[in-house]
């Protein structure tokens, strides 16, 4: 007879010395792992709950400004440097790793309306309410030297916005018209007008570097090509946009922050209908900035909250608020995709984590694997009602909570009225207008 019985050699299964790691032989046979779906579901549930437990996004507050923070600028080359301009004309340079102010200078009399760091990182530009454009050195002045701008340009009207070209020594300002300046000249090389009396902001496209967009006071967004002499086209919306931000990864998408509590993502080529309407704020949206990956963006609103949206998500995935943070005027997403910087009315700049439950710092390989596994499980089961309920749950201040409910009731009422009108009129006479098309008035070429 032929016989074989399972005979295991313990030397193959037990570690040799105390200093070795334990041996863990694996067998992935599904019959040895029953109830795999239920166990995965339980793990996903635990992961979602733990994410809420560890969601502590606030990192630090940068204190020092003596008036509300009006604008911020990211340093082009250094991740730990931030520049901020306040409503009393002061510009401060911060070191983010030490949470302290490195340099202060009195840039303008009146508001600092716009700031941008040159692409090389050695100098930065500011515009203010005193109708000047000033260029400053990035290095602090030496001992005994005064803070002096490298260059000052006096203009005739107030400039309200500023942005620099990605690679060339060219920058653009907006005020009563959009001007393109060369750094060596003291008068603009080109000016764009379109019958509008004031523009609130101007932004260069980071991918298609010759394109610009600006938000005008006649509720429109105007697109320009720097190489041409006239603007390209403009889209007029129902309410005015405060600012906009170009997607750093997709050349033709930009998101504008509008006064009607929404944000709109447009494709530059088809301005008739926005790609997405992002609804969640309960007051005017003041600023928007994209993450460097181009997959998400953050918006700051007059309703004292910051919201993070996915690029194609109609509703926010995250909301940050603090009792001490008043109206958030400006917001930036740091270039390493990990932090969000918000400047608000009460003279503070706050540093937040982009992923609230993320562990910062270097992770051990097992930690990283466990985090990736939990993330994948949460994504797999995200639609199950219990898990969705826990993942969506956020605490909101009472005013905002009641305001959202009120806005929902109002929207519901409007929708019901429209439905009734459609029901009681001749079929086809009241066309169905989708939510996206409702907010665009017209596109002008």
């Amino acid at each position: 007879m032929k016989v074989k019985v399972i005979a295991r050699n313990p030397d193959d299964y037990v570690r040799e010395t105390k200093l070795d790691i334990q041996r863990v032989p694996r067998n992935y046979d599904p019959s040895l792992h029953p109830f795999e779906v239920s166990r995965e579901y339980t793990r996903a549930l635990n992961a979602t709950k733990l994410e809420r437990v560890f969601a502590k996004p606030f990192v630090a507050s940068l204190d020092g400004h003596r008036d509300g923070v009006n604008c911020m600028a990211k340093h082009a080359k250094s991740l730990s440097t931030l520049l901020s301009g306040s409503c009393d004309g002061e510009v401060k340079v911060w070191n983010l790793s030490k949470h302290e102010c490195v340099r202060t200078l009195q840039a303008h009399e009146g508001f600092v309306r716009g700031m941008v760091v040159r692409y090389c990182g050695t100098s930065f530009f500011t515009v203010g309410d005193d109708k000047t454009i000033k260029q400053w050195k990035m290095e602090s002045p030496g001992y005994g030297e005064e803070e002096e701008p490298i260059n000052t340009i006096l203009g005739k009207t107030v400039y309200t916005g500023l942005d620099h070209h990605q690679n060339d020594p060219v920058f653009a300002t907006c005020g009563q018209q959009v001007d393109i300046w060369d750094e060596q000249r003291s008068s603009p090389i080109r000016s764009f007008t379109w019958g509008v009396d004031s523009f609130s902001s101007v932004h260069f496209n980071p991918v298609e570097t010759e394109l610009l967009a600006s938000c005008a006071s006649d509720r429109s967004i105007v697109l320009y090509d720097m190489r041409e002499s006239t603007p390209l086209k403009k889209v007029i919306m129902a309410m005015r946009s405060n600012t906009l931000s170009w997607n750093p990864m997709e050349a033709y998408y930009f998101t504008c922050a509008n006064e009607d509590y929404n944000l709109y993502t447009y494709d530059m080529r088809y301005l008739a209908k926005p790609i997405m309407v992002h609804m969640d704020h309960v007051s005017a949206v003041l600023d928007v900035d994209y993450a460097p990956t181009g997959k998400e963006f953050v918006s700051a609103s007059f309703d004292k909250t910051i919201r993070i949206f996915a690029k194609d998500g109609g509703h926010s995935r995250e909301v940050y608020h603090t009792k001490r943070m008043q109206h958030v005027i400006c917001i930036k997403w740091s270039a390493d995709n990990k932090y969000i910087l918000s400047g608000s009315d009460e003279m503070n700049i706050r540093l937040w984590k982009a992923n609230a439950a993320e562990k910062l710092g270097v992770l051990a390989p097992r930690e990283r694997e466990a985090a990736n596994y939990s993330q994948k499980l949460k994504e797999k089961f995200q639609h199950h009602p219990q898990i969705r309920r826990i993942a969506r749950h956020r605490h909101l201040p009472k005013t905002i909570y009641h305001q959202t409910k009120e806005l929902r009731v109002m929207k519901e009422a409007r929708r019901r009225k429209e439905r009734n009108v459609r029901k009681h009129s001749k079929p086809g006479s009241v066309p169905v207008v989708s939510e996206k098309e409702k907010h665009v008035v017209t596109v002008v070429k």
Partner: protein
Amino acid sequence: MASPGEASVNETHVGKKKKLPARYWQELQEEERKDENKVKKDGEQSKEALQQEEDKTQKAKKRKQDQSPSDGEKVKPEKSDPFPGPAPIPEDRLQKFKRKDKLKKPHRKQHKLRDIIARSEDASEMAQKQAARFDLLLPEEAGFLEGDEDEDTCMISQEDIAEAVDITSGAKYFNLKLSQFGPYRLDYSKTGRHLLLGGRRGHVACIDWASKQLMCEINVMESVNDVKWLHTEAMYAVAQKKWLYIYDSNGIELHCIRKFNDVLRMQFLPYHFLLATAVSSQYMVTSGMDKKLKVYDVRTFKPLKSYFLPAGAACLSLSQKGLLSAATGDVVQVYKDVCSMPVTKPYMAHRLRGTVWGLHFCPFEDVLGIGHGDGFTSMLVPGAGEPNFDGLDANPYRSAKQRQEWEVKALMEKIQPDLISLDPTELAQVDQATWEQRHQDRVEVLGFDPLAKEKFVPKYKKKGRSSAGAIERRKKQVAHEEQRDVIRKSVEDKMKMEKERKERERKKAALSTQKSALDRFKK
């Protein structure tokens, strides 16, 4: 997309000829060719030969230039791989890891959904293949027992088997003579290392049966109906005459649960951490006084097979590899492959000193434990246990630290009792019923159906590609595609109906072939 490093693209390598270092085989081949030429013809033809040689070497150089930059590892660039592509995986192994069939493709217009589904299906296919490939690396192999030409496997005695295998495996066949405290019930722990014995007259003992070390031994002074390990070898439950008691592995009484009276049989659900009288396997085997053994499929609640036994089996146990052991009186018989093929004779048989009271296969060993009136016997059954265990689940060689970590993780993954259902993969499926309900609500609220297919409007193309004929052609194309979808769906539905009808008819026929006394009155 933003491309910060654009400067590097300006330099190209096209048209540049790199000079490669001379390889040893190139010189050898040139020499060979030279020798050949010299041997063949001398004189006039040598010039031509040299020219030809030069051409050849030029061509060879060019070919080598093309090939060698790509693969620096190949020794001889002219040889090709005799087994191109990835290694093939045997079909049955791939089938073992298959979870679900591919999903039906969603509508053409739902780009994102199609993308997501395609990506996830690719990922699961890759996972399936990787798992199937990993099977090759498993250290152990299952046991087997094959008799000679005229020998029957059920005639081979335990002593023969114990002699034929090595000493440690042979030591797994042993008898414990415990005739004082009545017939014994037994249970093996989940890892298979620890054994719990409970005698009818109150003797409870737990031992590490491989090393024969006694962990605890107590007498509970009451009649014991059943004993069961809980999730680890630290606690066990004893169903005593009146109530249910839980003891520590040192014999200390932890709990006395008065709510359970007269418990006869217990079962522990390891993943739910529940002690119940439920069956957790796929097949259920029952036996009765009618001397028949029936195998049921628990998912469909249908009897699969039915066997005839000489006497009703009092105890049954199913091993990890699908062996079934049935005990009648003082004889234990082991059957192989009960669930898949019909079986006529037992795989092995063993006779004991007393009536069999308890039967249990040891989880990762080829051992069957039998509790009987005369004590305990451990029997060798080659091919009963799963040879390769998973270290993260039940590891017989785990240390105390590993056991603690495992316990914490297992408790965190404990499945809630609401998730106990007949179909274990229910959670992974789309909840169609409530989706439909929500869809109906949404249609009501909005006044129109947001998911209804929009009429296809062909895009206006420039340069004369939008003539009337072209537009009509495009419209017809889409219409044909949609018609094909409709036809396919209706064919599938029809096939399903046909199948169901055939099933019903077959069942009817099966029932009708049963003879009844009234058959003679039928025409």
